[in-house]
């Protein structure tokens, strides 16, 4: 039954169909491509797929071999650490930036505009710029180190250091959006609360701890979930920055999936890895929804 803004009674059956007809074209794309992708991936994961994409049903054999594969387990843990460090750094930076943008009086518009710039830079361009920054012979970072008398590092040749560079580049890429979310939370806080607290003698730290932090808690939750979602599925930056190396030190799950699918040409096992990525993201989104509902608004 369709209630319409205006219904001409004579064409009741036509108007009942209207909303469905309006939805149909978009839905065809979404279900036909994305929906098909998910279902087909689940089906592929139960098959052995050869390089010519011929299938043979093998049950859960692909799952068994992926889950027992040490390379997969290592990439999963690497992803967890990558996400953890990315979130820690990005949340700290975006909180500092949002507080700054909220308080700053001079050059406010300029700073706000600048803070969102990385959001519009592609992951590949981000990776290339960070690789240049940390290049061992021409990079700015080694130039600065040598200027203050420290030895330059082979940043992208060392397993630990290249992991660090990946986290930094990822943070650069994801901080702007998180800053934007937190800033929108800060702007809803009544200024008078700050002044009142100050008059009562509360210092900056205590104002932040007892006024700012509790009031932006929902936004902190939202940006936390968003940061983890963006980091878990990060592919572009890492593939262009290190390609997963050196010695697989930066091979996260998404890169491993690409290797399995498009280098080893094993679409069966790659589909299992795809489902792992989807499962993680679905879980995160459920958390997101919870935080969101607790935050008090509605979808």
């Amino acid at each position, binding site marked *: 039954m369709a209630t319409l803004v205006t219904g001409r009674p004579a064409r009741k059956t036509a108007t009942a169909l209207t909303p469905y007809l309006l939805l149909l074209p978009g839905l065809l794309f979404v279900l036909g491509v994305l929906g098909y992708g998910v279902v087909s991936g689940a089906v592929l994961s139960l098959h052995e797929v050869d390089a010519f994409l011929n299938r043979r049903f093998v049950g859960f054999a692909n799952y068994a071999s992926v889950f027992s594969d040490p390379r997969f387990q290592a990439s999963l843990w690497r992803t967890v650490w990558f996400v953890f460090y990315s979130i820690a750094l990005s949340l700290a930076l975006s909180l500092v930036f949002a507080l700054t943008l909220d308080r700053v009086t001079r050059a406010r518009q300029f700073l706000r505009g600048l803070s969102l710039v990385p959001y519009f830079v592609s992951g590949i361009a981000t990776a290339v710029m960070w690789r240049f920054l940390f290049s061992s012979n021409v990079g700015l970072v080694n130039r600065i180190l040598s200027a203050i008398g420290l030895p330059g590092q082979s940043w992208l040749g060392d397993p630990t250091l290249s992991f660090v560079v990946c986290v930094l580049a990822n943070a650069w890429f994801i901080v702007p959006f998180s800053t934007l979310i937190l800033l929108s939370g800060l702007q809803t806080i009544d200024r008078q609360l700050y002044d009142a607290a100050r008059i009562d003698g509360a210092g900056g730290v205590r104002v932040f701890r007892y006024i700012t932090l509790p009031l932006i808690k929902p936004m902190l939750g939202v940006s936390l979930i968003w940061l983890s979602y963006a980091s878990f599925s990060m592919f572009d930056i890492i593939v*262009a920055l290190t390609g997963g190396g050196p010695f697989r030190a930066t091979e996260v799950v998404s890169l491993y999936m690409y290797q399995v699918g498009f280098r080893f040409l094993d679409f069966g096992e790659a589909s299992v890895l795809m489902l792992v990525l989807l499962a993680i993201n679905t879980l995160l989104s459920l958390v997101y929804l919870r935080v969101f509902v607790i935050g008090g608004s509605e979808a």
Partner: protein
Amino acid sequence: MTTASAKGPVGRRALRASRFAQGSLIWLPALLLVVWTSTPILWAFMASLKEPLEIYESTSLLPRSPSLDAYREVITMRGFPRWFLNSVLVTAVATVVPLGLSLVAAYAFARYAFRFRHVLLLLFLIPRILPRVALIVPLYDLLHGLGILNSYTGLFLTYIASAVPLATWLLVGFVAGVPRELEESAAIDGANLWVRLRYVVVPMIWPGIVTAAVLCVREAWNEFPFVLAFTNSTEMRTLPYQLYVLEDAMGIQDWAVYNAFTIMTILPLLILYLLLERRIVSNIVSGALK
């Protein structure tokens, strides 16, 4: 130790003092923001204006004699016009088509009560959480089956599909904000659905449409996993794909050209952002939190 005995005037003085401290200290984090955000781009941009050897020799940020040679070299690369046009083409299609599809879908969700409305809305919105890269394996299989690997059709299909949820997400809220009375009076005057959409709804939600368009442009222009997985010929590459393979393609490591190419790929989007910044930023947030 001073105690709490002198609250009144001291409190006010403390307030002024703390404001002053805040005013001067805020430049530290503000400086951090500027340095952190602009250094990678500035360093790359400056290098793009240097001569190739200067990048290895000089320690200065500023180029000795700024030159656009590297940019000239990028533009005259044999495939550059093609890669650029590929990027423009897929971005245009992946913006205009999803906007149209999402506008009518958003209208249906915002204006009608119908059976399965909630389920259908979820079907539209849930794909937003599917990471692009996760889908490349089954979608490669799909495009292979349809015989449209390495074609514009394949890129159009996948780009449009992933942009529709994004645009619908944003537009539903905007359409719902248009007062029904406006449409009702137009309907009484005999305006049908398309006329109302075109002359009542679209003008009212124009900021939302601009925001959705910018977000679609951003996604398509910067897209990488799909074009990486679904194309294999040099002629089908978009700018991010070419940037990805550029180092191998050049043979020698010419950082000036490499950086000039990077700047060329991000410049169009940055210009668009700077032009529209004031109008879209707040909408991006509200769209993201919806």
